[in-house]
């Protein structure tokens, strides 16, 4: 039982990490209808930028700011030179363009910031919290907890931004209706640029947290693949969806990883690890067949 809870909790915590990446997708999708496959590459680039700037001799805090600026530039360039040139194209084309973008970033960042694996030290060690351990015997990584805290903070922050700032209103308006957004007197290009900047920031946070966990390496770029099932589950347009979806995926894949392989081993023999590589997808896929619009996504009828 205890073991089970521990799995669930660690599932929730790592799920939140997925949500964080998924969040980046959602932001951009809401505002510009683009499924930004490059979000993962952005996480990778952001993390690389941080360590890169540190290698160039900047202090941590400055490196982070520099990295953020870098991400903003990336975002703006993307808007200007890629998506800006693809307006009125079918979404699938934009999606493929972002695949191209992710390749580009995966190539560019290592050239700028070096490609050898480096750690990020947030000053929190990745070890179980003693008190909880003694009390319940359940191990909860400080780092994970800390990360979760950050993520929740970030979500609240975004929520506030969306609710109470002019930009935020514009962003929400853009989501439903471009004309309405224009009426707020903010040109779409700028709005999208802002969105990309925010997405860049989210990527940066994700990069820091993941990086501090298992070092800055190309694997970060693949976090996108973790986020995609989350999106399907939670719907492309819903922030809460991303959070809940992340948690569900996190927990389910951890459970699957623990409980399925033994069964298979009994049946076929051999080793059946690495289930979390595909489980979220199959899980999401099955879910899709039941509820095509996702958890929180809204249904739509095509008119003739």
């Amino acid at each position, binding site marked *: 039982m205890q073991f089970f809870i521990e799995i669930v909790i660690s599932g929730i915590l790592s799920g939140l990490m997925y949500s964080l990446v998924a969040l980046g997708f959602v932001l951009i999708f809401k505002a510009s209808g683009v499924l930004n496959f490059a979000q993962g590459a952005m996480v990778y680039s952001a993390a690389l930028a941080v360590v890169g700037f540190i290698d160039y001799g900047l202090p941590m805090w400055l490196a982070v700011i520099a990295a953020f600026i870098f991400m903003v530039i990336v975002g703006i360039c993307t808007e200007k030179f890629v998506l800006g040139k693809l307006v009125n194209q079918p*979404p699938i084309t934009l999606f493929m363009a972002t695949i191209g973008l992710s390749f580009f970033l995966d190539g*560019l960042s290592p050239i700028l910031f070096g490609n050898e694996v480096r750690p990020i030290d947030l000053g929190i060690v990745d070890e179980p919290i003693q008190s909880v351990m003694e009390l319940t015997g359940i191990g909860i990584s400080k780092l994970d907890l800390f990360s979760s805290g950050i993520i929740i903070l970030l979500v609240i922050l975004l929520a506030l931004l969306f609710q109470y700032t002019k930009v935020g209103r514009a962003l929400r308006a853009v989501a439903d209706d471009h004309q309405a957004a224009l009426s707020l007197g903010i040109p779409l290009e700028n709005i999208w640029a802002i969105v990309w900047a925010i997405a860049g920031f989210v990527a940066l946070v994700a990069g820091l947290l993941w990086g501090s966990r298992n070092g800055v390496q190309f694997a970060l770029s693949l976090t996108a693949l973790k986020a995609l099932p989350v*999106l399907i589950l939670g719907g492309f347009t819903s922030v809460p969806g991303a959070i809940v979806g992340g948690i569900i995926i996190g927990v389910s894949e951890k459970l699957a990883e623990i409980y399925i392989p033994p069964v298979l081993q009994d049946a076929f023999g051999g*080793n059946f690890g690495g289930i979390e590589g595909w489980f979220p997808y199959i899980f999401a896929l099955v879910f899709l067949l039941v509820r095509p619009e996702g958890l929180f996504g809204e249904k739509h009828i095509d008119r003739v």
Partner: protein
Amino acid sequence: MLYREAGQFKTSYKSDSQIFPILQDRIGMVILIAIAAIGVPLFASEYWLNAILIPFLIFSLAALGLNFLTGYAGQLSLGSAAFMAIGAYATYNFQLRIEGIPFPISFLLGGLSAAFVGVLFGLPSLRIKGFYLAVATLAAQFFVVWCLTKFPWFSNNSSSGVISAQTLSLFGFTFDTPASKYLLVLVIVSGLALLGKNLVRSSTGRSWMAVRDMDVAAEVIGIPLMKTKLLAFAISSFYCGIAGALYAYCYLGSVEPDGFSLDMSFKILFMVIIGGVGSILGNFLGAAFILLLPIFLDIALPFISQILHLPIPSSVVSHIQLMVFGSLIIFFLIVEPHGLARLWQISKEKLRLWPFPH
């Protein structure tokens, strides 16, 4: 300029609906085939056959497969490599487990197995569209590769799922020399390409494109969406499957599941995009482009670094490759969404109108 079309009139729908309605094109095609079938085996070096021409043909076939699904039926898939893997492993097992089965049969069965799995993973396409579906196809990519790695049966209990292809022989003739393998691949690929061309210019192809361009209208016309989409998935996967089998048997010789990675799927997608969505020729152009580009870079970059006097480490070369790929994709999507095939078509039109500009 070389075209002399005056006097080439059509007196039947047969002749009007030929693949190459213009005489000069037919001549050109014959010459091309002659070169590919006779000239190349005679004169091409082993390196060219093994390292360039054979993979070129195989990937052209895979791209063709994906093009049916994405270019013609409009269903984006990111799992092509997985279906190649199925083709390879299925063929391997049929060869392995059925005594004395002629390899064309096991190739066919391999393709069919891929088609079957393709249909399974295509089922969601009935309820979900666009990148929902694209994401769903990733499921195939990961799940299939995992299964092949983890279930020892598939690889006949070899470690980490590596299989080494049996040598192919038919009527006592064994395909062991590069030239013979090349010819085998050439025959299969061009054969399937022809069938594919027929398919896309027939009612099947039209219903695919109808679904792609406007599915509601297509249904109103009487095209059953489900049947059409699933057929696209099946045929697409079949072609990828065959490509996979060739990949294992005529190119690498021994393969492991991880060889059929997501990167490979993307590579094939890029071939389609750069070559030309919705074009048969495009797949060949795209494959050639994507395969030759790295080779070109490997040659060009050191050369450039010499001129600029800045050393370029090999890791950077590979990264530059990624950048070039990425930017090319974006470039083509923006500038020429129909890829090299369209460029070819345009220049051909120019030749036909010569000396006039339009």
